[in-house]
């Protein structure tokens, strides 16, 4: 599936897991926001330090948490870069960071809109 075809966020997964428990969904999304942000910060640091192993690990974590909450575009992007960093190292890490930060920005806007709508 093309990235452009993926939804930014699919809330059905969290609803299914929590049985529609809104407070739990909020708790998970807050944690995702915090840890995802931290993950991107640390990825930037790893890139600066040329730590491809650390970068790979962080991309793996970001991929897992994004998929878990239903942030499909973010999860797919992190997964692709995870594979690429593992295969090629940090050669394209600047592009990676740029794409991920853009995707993260879109996701945060989407989640804010959703919160406001709720």
């Amino acid at each position, binding site marked *: 599936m093309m990235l452009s075809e993926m939804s930014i966020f699919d809330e059905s*997964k969290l609803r*299914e897991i929590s049985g529609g428990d809104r407070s739990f969904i909020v*708790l998970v999304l807050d944690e995702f926001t915090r840890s995802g942000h931290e993950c991107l910060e640390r990825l930037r640091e790893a890139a600066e330090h040329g730590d491809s192993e650390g970068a790979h*690990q962080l991309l793996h*974590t970001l991929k*897992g*948490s994004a998929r*878990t909450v239903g942030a499909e575009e973010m999860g797919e992007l992190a*997964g692709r870069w995870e594979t690429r960093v593992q295969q090629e190292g940090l050669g394209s890490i600047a592009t990676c960071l740029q794409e991920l930060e853009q995707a993260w920005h879109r996701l945060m806007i989407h989640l804010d809109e959703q919160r406001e709508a709720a």
Partner: protein
Amino acid sequence: MRILIAEDDPVSALVLRRVLEDLLHDVDHAASGHEAWKLAQTSPYDVIVSDWMMPGVDGLELCRLTRSRLEGAYTYFILLSSKSEREARIEAVAAGVDDFLAKPVDTAELEARLTTARRILNMQDELRTRSAKLSQTTGYLETANRRFSDLFMGLPVPSITFDTEGRIAEWNRAAQSLFDLDADEVWQRQAVEVFADPDDLEWAESLVQRSIGGQCIENEERTVHRPDGSPRYVLYSTFPLKNNAGRIIGVVCTCSDLTAQRNLEKQLAEQLRVANNLNEALEAGKEELALANARLAELATTDGLTGLKNHRTFIEALEPSLAYAKRHREPLSLVLCDIDHFKHFNDAFGHPAGDALLREFAALLSCHSRTEDLVARCGGEEFAILLRNCGRENAIGVAEKLRAVIADHEWDLRKITASFGVQTLVDFEVPSIEAIVESADRALYASKQAGRNRVTHAADLHSVEAGKKAA
């Protein structure tokens, strides 16, 4: 179940925890593999659900560490991963992973996997319980085996087992001592070679075959020579060993050592033989001794020259004869006689002729006396005759007869006569021996005084003396 989540992604951990708690499990979370291992060591978990990729100790390493714990209950290990490569999964299974779950976790699939985990853990528990029981039973068996082995080895009766091929399997200390062969020397050797001497193999072969055939052999005795050549007397008994199915798998053989007993019997028999020989010798000696004693007694009571009783024997015979006569109120007479002019005879013809005269004189006295009369030589040419149950007249008659026999006898060298003195007990008042002898002697002296070759009774002597006193 107690479940540990090992997950460095807090979001995944949060969601997973929620799912598991909804399924009523007791859940802990460790944010790294290292932390998870520390928790698992302090309190073991039924299930560990671990992410694969974690910094430091990753999921595989955590699984290996978990499996390295030898003790305690089994932990079911589920690895969370998006990895689907064949090699990666093989590596995970090799590390001890029980199951895989793809991320993000599907709730229904997780529940199904946990049901499997529960089943496997129950089976593991059951296995562990059975294993513990088996281990306990094995322990009992080992203890029983050891005790039986100790008992067998320590039995005071020499005991051996051999298999159905006749090869020795067990050999206790008493058997080592009896045959003077160590267990190492006989193990797997044919029992027949040990049980009997080379010339008795037929019997040993028969014993082994009968025993393997199921017979119980009782007390068959054999002599076996030990390596040093010393004999051992052995009493063999056997009974077959059977397995649970009743099939004969070997034989137990006991070998009682009769050597000490047999040696004692031999010793006893030898001692008996020696004792019998000694006894025979003793019996023979006793007979000789009795003869010698009889001979000695004869010599002691007999006068060497004439063969008559001697003076001492005569005096000793007097007392019981006097007592007998008094008790039975029987008359008893004593005759003393003396060869007339014997000194002259000796002087004229010499002592050998005198001795010959004495022997011939004694023979005449003996020959013409009654069997019950005691004839003795009192010394020199003086003789005495004790006449039992014989009164005065009879005594005078006996003396007179003897006097006539002597006087009428045809002597070689010259005529011989003898003088006689007689005393008779009449009132049964027993005088002393000395008194009766003295009165007979006075009567003899009277005969000598009256011209010899005559008989004088002591009673007549009294009346003559009384007549002389009265006159």
